[in-house]
């Protein structure tokens, strides 16, 4: 029953600190140098879009297998070893082929084992029972590559979104192969989705001029469709990449001086410049295809060698398309395609309505509980109400400190916490009443009431705590906000009821030393 001054001061101090921490939510930062943490409004309250994007890891493995198959072909040719039926099996993660002669199999294995590996033990080379030789990608290598690809994708997604001028975008990894993109204020994410849905892998490859190959492409040549089908059928393009889009240093949307059309100008780094000038020098008169995501944007004829390292793409763009392509080329290519698996967009008017509804409910609910407590518990009811107010302040303070995101279900969680928070006070008060009814003195009644009620309060809050921790761990999106506010609410409830309201009751008793309690 006795609380030392120090204890009293520290409890009040925590409450005041809470009040101080709430301030940033209601006012502007007065001085630039002080920490200023506040609650963020969730997308459901401020309007905006939430995109859950999946990284297509299968295509990543497939790309690597393709490269491996190409390297195998080149290496065997260079070593003058024969082969048949190079085959990529994406399900088994293997590249396999039939050696020309079974006697050469061991030499094949030894030669291919020297192929460069991106990571240690990336693949193994084995003779198989059916006489074929297989290069098998290891599971660890696939996993490592996937992890790297997601990290890389996040960086590129960030660069692309930053290029659009979006305000406060949040880009985070979720699980092994997903990326969450949150865009406050953008309720129609179509343009951003178009930007993120394009891998923007650009390559410069020579066109096979043999007319026969336009219908039956030999190994090493593929038919690639035109980006604009009106410009004709697929072109036979060599698989060999002469210059890669990764060698670009800059790109921008410009208006072509001669035609007046929108175009994308680009410049290469030193590696790209050297490669570009050597290809254009030796292939004058041939067509050079600019391939973007396996579609030919254009395939101009090389008239003169281009040695300056600059170029321009004209693909019948409008202003938006030219700007977006330039942005994607600057930001870099995504290692694998991204697809949207979940999208939620909320318009600003609905968000404003939700804030109003939430604040109204919170206010009315708080008032109803306050009035109830006074009617049913008198003076001690007032103390419970003071503790309730402190509870609300502390909840907002902790949420601000964490810079947590407040969602509509989060507001519901706050409201329910307030309803549950007085339970502890009710338990204490009812217990004191019983003890008084049994004929105990006021002091003894209060003491026993506090003691007996404490174990019940801890028990009941512990179960609620467990349930909401589960919800926080397994929930997603707004539901996590709900679970978070309730979990924080349980902690603040224990503090305000077990310390603050008890202290208020004890302090009151210490002054007038009443003969009977107001219960």
């Amino acid at each position, binding site marked *: 029953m006795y609380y030392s001054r120090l204890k009293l001061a520290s409890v009040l101090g925590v409450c005041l600190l809470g009040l101080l921490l709430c301030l940033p939510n209601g006012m502007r930062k007065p001085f630039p140098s002080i920490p200023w943490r506040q609650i963020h409004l969730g997308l459901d309250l401020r309007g905006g879009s939430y995109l859950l994007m999946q990284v297509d890891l299968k295509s990543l493995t497939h790309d690597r297998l393709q490269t491996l198959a190409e390297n195998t072909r080149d290496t065997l040719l260079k070593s003058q070893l024969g082969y048949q039926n190079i085959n990529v099996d994406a399900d088994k993660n293997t590249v396999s082929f039939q050696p020309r002669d079974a006697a050469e199999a061991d030499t094949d294995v030894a030669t291919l084992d020297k192929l460069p590996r991106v990571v240690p033990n990336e693949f193994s080379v084995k003779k198989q029972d059916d006489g074929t030789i297989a290069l098998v990608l290891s599971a660890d290598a696939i996993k490592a590559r996937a992890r790297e690809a997601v990290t890389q994708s996040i960086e590129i997604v960030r660069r692309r979104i930053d290029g659009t001028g979006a305000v406060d975008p949040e880009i985070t990894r979720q699980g092994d192969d997903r990326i969450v993109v949150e865009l406050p204020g953008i309720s129609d994410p179509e343009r951003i989705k178009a930007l993120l849905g394009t891998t923007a892998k650009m390559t410069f490859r020579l066109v096979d001029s043999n007319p026969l190959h336009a219908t039956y492409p030999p190994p090493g040549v593929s038919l690639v469709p035109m980006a604009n089908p009106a410009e004709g059928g697929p072109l036979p393009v060599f698989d060999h990449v002469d210059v890669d889009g990764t060698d670009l240093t800059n790109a921008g949307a410009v208006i072509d001086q001669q035609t007046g059309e929108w175009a994308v100008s680009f410049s290469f780094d030193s590696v790209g410049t050297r490669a570009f000038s050597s290809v254009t020098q030796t292939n004058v008169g041939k067509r050079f295809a600019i391939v973007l995501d396996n579609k030919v944007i254009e395939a101009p004829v090389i008239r003169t060698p281009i040695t300056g390292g600059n170029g321009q793409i004209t693909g019948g763009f409008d202003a938006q398309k030219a700007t977006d392509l330039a942005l994607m080329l600057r930001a870099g290519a995504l290692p694998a395609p991204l697809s949207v698996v979940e999208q939620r967009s*909320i318009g600003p008017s609905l968000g404003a309505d939700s804030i109003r509804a939430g604040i109204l409910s919170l206010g009315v609910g708080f008032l109803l509980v306050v009035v109830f407590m006074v009617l049913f518990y008198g*003076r001690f009811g007032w103390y419970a109400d003071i503790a309730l107010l402190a509870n609300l302040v502390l909840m907002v303070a902790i949420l601000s400190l964490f810079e947590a995101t407040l969602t509509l279900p989060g507001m519901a969680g706050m409201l*329910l916490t307030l309803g549950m928070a007085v339970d502890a006070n009710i338990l204490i008060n009812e217990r004191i009443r019983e003890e008084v009814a049994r004929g105990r003195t006021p002091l003894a009644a209060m003491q026993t009431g506090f003691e007996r009620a404490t174990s019940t309060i801890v028990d009941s809050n512990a179960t*609620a705590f467990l349930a909401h921790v589960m919800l926080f761990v*397994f*929930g997603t999106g707004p539901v996590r906000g709900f679970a978070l506010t309730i979990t924080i609410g349980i902690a603040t409830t224990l503090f305000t009821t077990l310390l603050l309201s008890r202290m208020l009751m004890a302090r009151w008793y210490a002054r007038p030393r009443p003969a009977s309690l107001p219960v």
Partner: protein
Amino acid sequence: MFGRPLLRFVRKDTQINFMRGRYMGLIVSAVLSIASIILFFHPGLTLGLDFRGGIVVEAKTSGPADFAKLRSALAAQHISHASLQAFGAPDDVLIRLDAGDDQNTDAVVDTVRRAVTEAQPGTTILRADAVGASVSAELFRNGMLALGLSLAMILVYIWFRFEWEFALSAVITLVLDLTKTMGFLVITGFEFDLVMVAAILTILGYSTNDKVVVYDRVRENLRKYRTMPLIDLINLSINETLNRTLGTSSTVFLAALPLALWGGATLSGFAWTMLFGIVVGTSSSIFIAAPLLLFMGEGRLKRGAKAGPAPAQQKS
């Protein structure tokens, strides 16, 4: 206003014989729960977007919504199986579409958005959500996992703090509460989604809390009155805690009520379910959990200090 309380629920010497109605309580509960289970399988829950997958677009049209025009605009985009529905004001339209096999729900949602704004210029899109089939299956799995694990952890916690008779009757009661809540969702047609899982978990937490308080008192009285028949002892415990039980359910009820009335489309279903759960959870503590404890604990529950080994008992 500063002095003594003006109101209270029951007088301090109240002695209602709740246990007289123990069979009645269990029978009514069993009937309601069986009916709920039947409803659960037929017609079944209305799954929300989170768990069903597909798209939902909520639009506010300029002027009253012209459904025929909107429908033909969607049909022109080869979207024929969408359901259009008015809600609230005449200019509020809700468009839903199931995920089916279509992987590109996000592209469909953009098409719908465009078709609607073109059909009735000046329309504002309030909300446009798309959830792919694989994600919805995952969300459902996680939701159920959270629900199951919470129940299990509550069971373990009560087991640790009380004897097993308490834990078992509490969890049986919770399961009965849960089935009735499902029945409530089927009858009202509220959508079962992640927010609803949160509501159900809160109800479970609240209901457990209520049972813990009554059981706490039973345990205390078991030590105090060694010879009192268990049926009278449970009656006494319920009566002693009755003011608290009614008080706390009232405050939680009062807190959730404004949410049900003004919480908007997202939260009103959640809040009504909460209100239902508070009523069910409070009554089940008295009429289900207590009789179950009586049946399971008769002649078995330990009495008095000589047989009280649990360290937790010294605390209370």
